[in-house]
């Protein structure tokens, strides 16, 4: 999302999950499945409307996320609202973890499959289409993967902060990377380190939910990468 210049789209998109979470809570099924369904359906609608109207992704996501937030806040049970907005690592059970690992592996494999097409389309859509790449389909699969990753992250840090996991590790990695391999690897490492260190920090700050601490860890990593970048005089 950062390379597509859609960092804030990734952030705002995460809020679209709220009505899905609410329906899950109300109808007593896994709210994160509801959240994912809402994310993906919204992403497809936004993708389709953008294709036919050429209105920017930012504007469409901006409109849909505020609507989703309003609907979600109206229908979600009050007791669940804080968990939906800020996540709750303490409520993550072993099956959630197994599901997250499997989904993550599948997402990584799918991303690897479309990686070259995606990068070429970022450089020039015309160039990609002229090589026979179906850019529209590639973008749709990409949005699906973003929806999956965001849905997994919501459980830990909530809908308000999950955008952080999409944006900050990626911009920190970009600051230090001269090629895509390094960029991809560092993004993953920074994401994992932010999440783990944030969760560990809850031992030292009892009563503080892990979501904000994960965000603080990630921002600290980003700050360090900027300092390293300056020191090495690398170009941003």
């Amino acid at each position: 999302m950062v390379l597509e210049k859609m960092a804030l789209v990734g952030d705002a998109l995460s809020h679209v999950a709220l009505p899905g979470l609410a329906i899950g809570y109300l109808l007593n099924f896994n709210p994160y499945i509801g959240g994912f369904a809402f994310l993906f359906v919204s992403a497809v609608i936004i993708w389709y409307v953008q294709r036919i109207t050429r209105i920017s992704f930012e504007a469409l996501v901006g409109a849909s996320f505020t609507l989703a937030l309003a609907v979600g806040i109206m229908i979600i049970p009050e007791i669940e609202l804080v968990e939906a907005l800020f996540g709750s690592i303490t409520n993550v059970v072993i099956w959630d973890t197994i599901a997250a690992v499997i989904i993550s592996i599948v997402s990584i494999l799918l991303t690897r499959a479309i990686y070259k097409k995606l990068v070429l389309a970022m450089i020039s859509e015309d160039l990609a289409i002229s090589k026979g790449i179906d850019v529209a389909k590639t973008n749709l699969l990409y949005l699906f993967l973003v929806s999956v990753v965001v849905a997994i992250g919501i459980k830990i840090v909530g809908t308000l902060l999950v955008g952080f996991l999409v944006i900050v590790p990626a911009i920190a990695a970009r600051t230090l990377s001269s090629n895509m391999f390094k960029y991809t690897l560092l993004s993953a490492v920074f994401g994992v380190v932010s999440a783990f260190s944030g969760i560990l920090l809850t031992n030292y700050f009892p009563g503080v939910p892990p979501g904000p601490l994960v965000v603080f860890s990630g921002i600290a990593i980003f700050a360090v990468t900027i300092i390293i970048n300056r020191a090495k005089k690398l170009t941003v």
Partner: protein
Amino acid sequence: MSTAVDEDHILRVTGLNVTLQNQPVLEHVSFSVKKGTTLAVLGPNGAGKSVLFRVLLNLLPYEGKVEWIEKVKVGYVPQNVAVSDIPISVREFLSIGKNKCDPVAALSLVKLNDVKILDKRLGVLSGGELRRVLIAWALIDDPNILLLDEPTNGVDVGSEEPIFLMLDGIKKNSNMTILLITHDIHIVQEYSDYLLAINKCVTFLGKSSEIANMATQQVIYGEPVCVETLKSED
């Protein structure tokens, strides 16, 4: 896009009309391109030059006929690419073009012989280096024809001529056909065989040497007067 061109030609365009957002962008454009020649496409901004290329690449809907030789392979260098924000190295970019690409050989084709460039980010290359890398990328699949949309866009004046010299060498060595969009009359005269001037419609089609003729320049840069010529080599 159909494939019914005689053996001397690689491309024939007949009665091409393109309308975008209810505005006519190209009208009654007809021309053909002989194999192994360079056709320069000239015209003011907004004349429809890049649109013509996008039609040839089948990126836009159109009316009329666009006929290529069978099994044509088209290499394309777009006018603009978004590389400044993407941390992709030259080596990685070339590998996107072809899995088993020899990056050193690909770069030597475009006279970039310093292997250190392979590990540089695309976004930090000079304008001339970036254009050469894009041309190398377009050449990876051994195309029969190269479509170059302002191939020296973003290149400083001193580096333009060497790029056209390099392209001329590639054309002569491999009998490649080149279509290039340019604004530079000198480039048209020195490095192309035929000239197609458009301003929505075709305003001039003929030998590039005729650009030296004042009357021809008046036709190209004055009020557009459409011509209905078919063959560029006539």
